[in-house]
């Protein structure tokens, strides 16, 4: 579990995150959503330690990441896997070498064991055939999958994904979402995804944090979103007429379910 406790972050006079408290739950796909400039990327960079917070605490399973020594931070970082928006694959290395890199740097065991683990991860993302190719020779969707394979190769406890679907076609996006969700459940990882993609929100959002102007505006699950009365959230999620109609249809469907009728009565 990752907890953000009253974190504040600014650049010069400009405050990006005035005061954010949120919890990212273990075994769930936690989404950070919000329009451009809402502070979600800064929040993610603070969480992984690429940017120091000005105030507040970030707790990894109760351990205060913000006040750790560099050595302790390194240990936590070795439990973090991250998928970058642009995949961030090393250009000079093949797909196999890219996935092997964290293992070579920190992994124990023989070269054969490491290679087996790399092949296992590549098979998991269905890219075993592309092992000898260079990043320049594969498509955007494949790069993302290599990024995922590299992120999970050390069996991380925490997986961060920065806009995993940006620039991908809807079908590949769904594939990536499914892969991330499956891995989260399979390895019981705390997954945090920063996204704009509404498909991801509706399909994978076990726990969603909606950011508005640097503040946490709303928090809930993908099911809660359908019945949310938060105007800002609704304007963001159901921006088009098509999506608004889809929401109404979904509401109707869900309302027919007894559980939801009971839940709404309680609320």
């Amino acid at each position, binding site marked *: 579990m990752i907890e953000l406790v009253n974190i504040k972050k600014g650049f010069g006079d400009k405050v990006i995150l005035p005061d954010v408290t949120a919890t990212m739950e273990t075994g769930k796909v936690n989404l950070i959503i919000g329009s451009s400039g809402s502070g979600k990327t800064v929040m993610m960079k603070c969480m992984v330690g690429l940017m120091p917070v000005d105030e507040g605490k970030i707790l990894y399973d109760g351990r205060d990441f913000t006040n750790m020594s560099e050595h302790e931070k390194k240990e936590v970082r070795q439990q973090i896997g991250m998928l970058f928006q*642009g995949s961030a694959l090393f250009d000079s290395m093949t797909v196999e070498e890219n996935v092997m890199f964290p293992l070579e*740097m920190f992994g124990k065991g023989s070269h054969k064991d490491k290679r087996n683990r790399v092949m296992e991860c590549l098979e998991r993302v269905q890219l075993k055939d592309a092992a000898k190719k260079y990043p320049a020779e594969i498509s955007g969707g494949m790069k993302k999958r290599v990024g995922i394979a590299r992120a999970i190769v050390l069996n991380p406890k925490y997986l961060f994904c920065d806009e995993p679907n940006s620039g991908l076609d809807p079908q590949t996006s769904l594939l990536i979402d499914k892969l991330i969700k499956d891995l989260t459940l399979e390895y019981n990882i705390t997954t945090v995804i920063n996204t704009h993609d509404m498909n991801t929100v509706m399909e994978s959002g076990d726990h969603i944090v909606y950011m508005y102007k640097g503040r946490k505006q709303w928090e809930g699950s993908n099911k809660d979103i359908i019945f949310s009365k938060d105007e800002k959230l609704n304007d963001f999620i159901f921006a088009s007429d098509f999506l608004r109609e889809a929401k109404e249809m979904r509401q109707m469907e869900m309302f027919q379910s007894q559980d939801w009728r009971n839940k709404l009565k309680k609320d």
Partner: protein
Amino acid sequence: MEFRFFHHFGSYLLMLKGMFSRPENMRMFWKEFMRQCVDIGIGSLGIVLIISMFMGGVTTLQIAYQLVSPVIPRSTIAQIVRDTIILEFAPTLTCIVLAGVVGSKIASELGNMRVSEQIDAQEIMGINTKGYLIMPKILAAIIMIPCLIAIAGFLGIWGGQKAGELGGILSAEQYWQGLRQDFRAYNIFFALFKAFVFAFIIASVPSYYGYHVQGGALEIGKASTSAVVVTCVLILFMDYLLAALLL
């Protein structure tokens, strides 16, 4: 303006300080170091061979053109060529060229890694990127550039001999006689000392510019250009300073 200078200088010193930590994996560090040795050493060998031979040849021709007095022995040409190449041309001229070749490569490589988040990816893995990416470059430069300068010195002197023979200015015997006249081993020490200082500048300054790039392709280009310009100016400044202090 002066605040920007102090800001950059402070950041540069912090970058250097950040490099000194125990490598996460010595084998990977060694692999990266060897890759840099090949890139910097073997990668620049061709251009160093070409410029040093022509540098020696042109120096011989120009000195012969200026020393027209019949009272000055022809072997003096070789003596002047030797000292000019050892003291100045081999270390300084070669390093100015290497600042362009190696410096721009280092700055653009690190700049591209920064912009495409490859450095962030390594940071998140728990790697000290300054230690893993910059330190091997500086060490490789400090080892390989003095070797390149030694080669440039030999080839420059050899090129001078060939140009003298081909131009009918002086024979090989006269040239070798001149090379042995008033030879001072201290000059070799001075040239190699300069080579170490310049090598450090050639690797560290472009690393600083590349590592701190913010933006996109345009900024990588700008950083690469700034890195080469600043490196060249620093080499010339240090060249003057070392000559004033050590000669």
